C-alpha cells in the first residue's frame, strides 16, 4: 500500500529528499522536523535500515545518488565523512561507491531496479561500466518522452514501472521490452509529470507526495503490485508488458 508523505511543511517532492531500495532507505538529514523520518520509520522500522544523511551538505540526496540492493553510487560532491558514515551504516552486502561523473545528479539521470538500469544518453562510458559492476544491472541508454533525464521521469521497481505521462505508446512498448516489467504512463502529486520526485518505491511498499490524489495512488498501487486486489486479474495479465487502464 502506498503512503502519502510530506517533507517539511507542504513539500510533496519526497523523491528528491529520500531514496528507497529493497535493502535500505536513505533520508535527508537536513529536514527541519522529524516527521519525514518518522513517516518512513512507521513502515520500514525493523525491516530495512533507515539512514539519515546529507550529500555534500545538501539535503537533496534523492537527486544525487542512485542505488539498488546491490550497491549505492554517489556523486563526487559527497564528503569523505558522509561517505564513511554511509559505509558504516549500510549492510556489508551493499557496495558504496563514489563516482566521478560530470552529470552529478545521478538520481535524475539514472533509473534502476535490481536487474536493469536506464541511463541518461550522455553519460560517460566509464560510469556505465561502474554502474553495471557496482549495481549488477544491465545498462541501457534511453530517453523518455524526448527527455534525457530518465531518472526523474521514470520510477522502476522489480514489479513494475511508471513513466512520464506524455510518453507515447510505441516508446512505452520499447521501454517495457528493455526493462521486462509492465509500465504505465501516469502522474503523481496532482498531475505532476516528474515521477521520481514525487514517488519512492521498492518491491513491497511505496511512498508518494501528499498532493497525490486517490486516483494516482491507486494507479501506483496497481502497477507496482502493492495491492493484491484481484488475484486472477493479476495472474492473467502478468504476461502483458503494458497495462494502462488501472483504477
Amino acid at each position, binding site marked *: 500500500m502506498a503512503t502519502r508523505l510530506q517533507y517539511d511543511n507542504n513539500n510533496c517532492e519526497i523523491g528528491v529528499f529520500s531514496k528507497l531500495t529493497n535493502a535500505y532507505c536513505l533520508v535527508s538529514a537536513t529536514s527541519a522536523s522529524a516527521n519525514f523520518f518518522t513517516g518512513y520509520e512507521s513502515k520500514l522500522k525493523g525491516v530495512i535500515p533507515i539512514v539519515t544523511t546529507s550529500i555534500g551538505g545538501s539535503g537533496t540526496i534523492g537527486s544525487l545518488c542512485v542505488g539498488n540492493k546491490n550497491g549505492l553510487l554517489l556523486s563526487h560532491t559527497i564528503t569523505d565523512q558522509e561517505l564513511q558514515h554511509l559505509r558504516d551504516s549500510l549492510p556489508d552486502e551493499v557496495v558504496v561507491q563514489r563516482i566521478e561523473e560530470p552529470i552529478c545528479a545521478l538520481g535524475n539521470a539514472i533509473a534502476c531496479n535490481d536487474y536493469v538500469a536506464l541511463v541518461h544518453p550522455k553519460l560517460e562510458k566509464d560510469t556505465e561500466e561502474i554502474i553495471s559492476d557496482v549495481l549488477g544491472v544491465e545498462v541501457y541508454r534511453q530517453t523518455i518522452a524526448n527527455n534525457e533525464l530518465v531518472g526523474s521521469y521514470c520510477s522502476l521497481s522489480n514489479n513494475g514501472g511508471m513513466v512520464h*505521462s506524455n510518453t*507515447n505508446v*510505441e516508446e512505452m512498448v520499447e521501454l517495457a521490452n528493455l526493462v521486462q516489467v509492465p509500465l504505465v504512463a501516469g*502522474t503523481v502529486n*496532482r498531475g505532476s509529470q516528474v515521477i521520481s520526485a514525487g514517488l519512492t518505491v521498492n518491491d513491497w511498499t511505496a511512498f508518494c507526495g501528499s498532493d497525490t490524489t486517490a*486516483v494516482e495512488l491507486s494507479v501506483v498501487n496497481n502497477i507496482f503490485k502493492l495491492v493484491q486486489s484481484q488475484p486472477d486479474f493479476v495472474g492473467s495479465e502478468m504476461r502483458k508488458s503494458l497495462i*494502462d*487502464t488501472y483504477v
Partner: protein
Amino acid sequence: MSVMDESGMFNVQQTIGSVLCCKCGVPMAPNAANMCVNCLRSEVDITEGLQKSIQIFYCPECTCYLQPPKTWIKCQWESKELLTFCIKRLKNLNKVKLKNAEFVWTEPHSKRIKVKLTVQAEVLNGAVLEQSYPVEYTVRDNLCESCSRFQANPDQWVASVQLRQHVSHRRTFFYLEQLILRHDAASRAIRIQQVDQGIDFFFGNKSHANSFVEFLRKVVPIEYRQDQQLVSHDVKSSLYNYKYTYSVKICPVCREDLVCLPSKVASGLGNLGPLVVCTKVSDNITLLDPRTLRCAFLDARQYWRSGFRSALTSRQLVKYFVFDVEPPVGEATVGGQKYALSYVQIARESDIGKMFYVQTHLGHILKPGDQALGYDIYGANVNDNEMEKYRLSVKNGLPEAILIKKCYEEQRERKQKKSRNWKLKSLPMEMDDSRGRVDPEKTDKEYEEFLRDLEENPELRFNISLYRDKDYQASETASMTDGEGAPSVPIEELLADLDLSFEEEDDDDEDDMAAE
C-alpha cells in the same frame, strides 16, 4: 512501427497514450495539467473577474446605442455592429483571449440582449483552458440628443442656404437640380423649399451648409454672404447657439443670352465686340463675339466686379427662316465647339417679306431651308443702357439679327409626342404656393424646353445623369426618311436605373410631366 515517408525518411509512428485524470480517474490524453477538462474547469474558473451583466442605452427613434460619453452608434438588432459594440463595452476582457462570440436569442421586447462569449486563458502549468459564459445586457431607452432636439421642434434647422437668381425663367434651377442629384450634394439637407426665383436648402449643421455652398461655387458663378442669428445663449458656459444663413446669388447671365458689355469690360477683355453671346455657364461664363469668333472667360469674381446684365434673354428669341448660306469665310474652334463665320440671308417667320443679310457664327450647321432662332435687334425695343450707348456710338448701326441656334421644331413635330427614351430624377422639393405667382403651365413649358435643350446639347448632358425610361417603347413608325431627324440622346449615355429605387421610378415618371 516505422513508416517510410515520401521523402524517404524514417518516421516513427507516434501514438499518444492515455493516462488517468488525477482527480476523477477517467482515461484521457495527457495534457499539461493531467486533469480532465471537467476537473480542470471545476478547479479553475477563468471567467472570474469578468463582467457578466451590464447596462446599455438605446435610442428608439433612430435605433442607436450609446457609447459613452457622447457617441451614438447605429446598429440593427442582432447585427455584427451590435456584437462588436457589446463586446467593446465589457471591461477586463483583455485578460483573456476572446475566441468566439454570438448572440443568444432573447425576446425583442424583453429589453435584454444575451451574448455568449468563449474565452481562452492559461491555467496551472501551461494548460490552456477554454470556457464559454453568457453576458447579459440590460437595454434602457434613452432619446439621443439629436432626436430629443428634433422631438422638441421638428422644423429645427441650424443653417440654411438661400439660392437666388434674379431672372424670369427657371432654366438654371432645373439644370442645377440635376447637377445636385448627380453629385449628391443635398443629401444632408433637412428640407428643400422652392420659392419664387430660387430654392432654399435647410441643413442641420453649419458645415453641411458650407460644403454645399462650396459645391455651388464650383458649378455656377456665385456671390454669397453669410449671416447668423442668435437663438440662445448659455450664460454659465458661454455657449452661443446660432442660426446661420447663406445668401447665394447666381449670376443672371445665362446661356444663349445676348449681352452688351460695358465699355470698360469690353476693353478689359481685349476689345471684345460689345455685343457678345453667352455660350456656356459653368464656374465661369464663356462669352463669344459672333463677329470675330473670339471667346472670353469671366469667372465669378470678375463678373461681380462689373455686374452687367443681359440685354436680351432666351425669352425674346425669334424664329427665322434661312434662305441662303454662303460658304464660311472663317472657322474657329472655341472651347471644343466648332464655329464658322458666314453670311446668311434670313427673314423672320412673322414677317417673311423683310429679308436680312447678316453675319452669323453658325455657318457650320445652317443650311438653306433651315429654321433658326435668334435675336431680332432690328425690330426689338431693347431696354439696356449699354445697348443704347453702343447704338449711338457705332457708325453702321447694330447688326439686324444675331442667330443663336438652329431650330428643330419641324423635325420634332414629325416625331410622336412623349417619345423620349430617357428620364430625369428630381429633388424632393416643397412648393411655395403662398405667393400665388406660380403658373403651372409656364413651368411645364419651361421644363419641356429644358429637356429639349438637353437633347440638343451633349456638353450640357456631361454632368447630368440620365436614366433609361423603362416604359419607353420604340415606335416602328419613327423612320427618318428625309435627312436629319430631331436630335436625341444616344442610348450609350443613358444609365440603367437601379431596381433599388423601384418606387421612385413611378413617381419620377409623373414628376417629369408635372411641375416641380
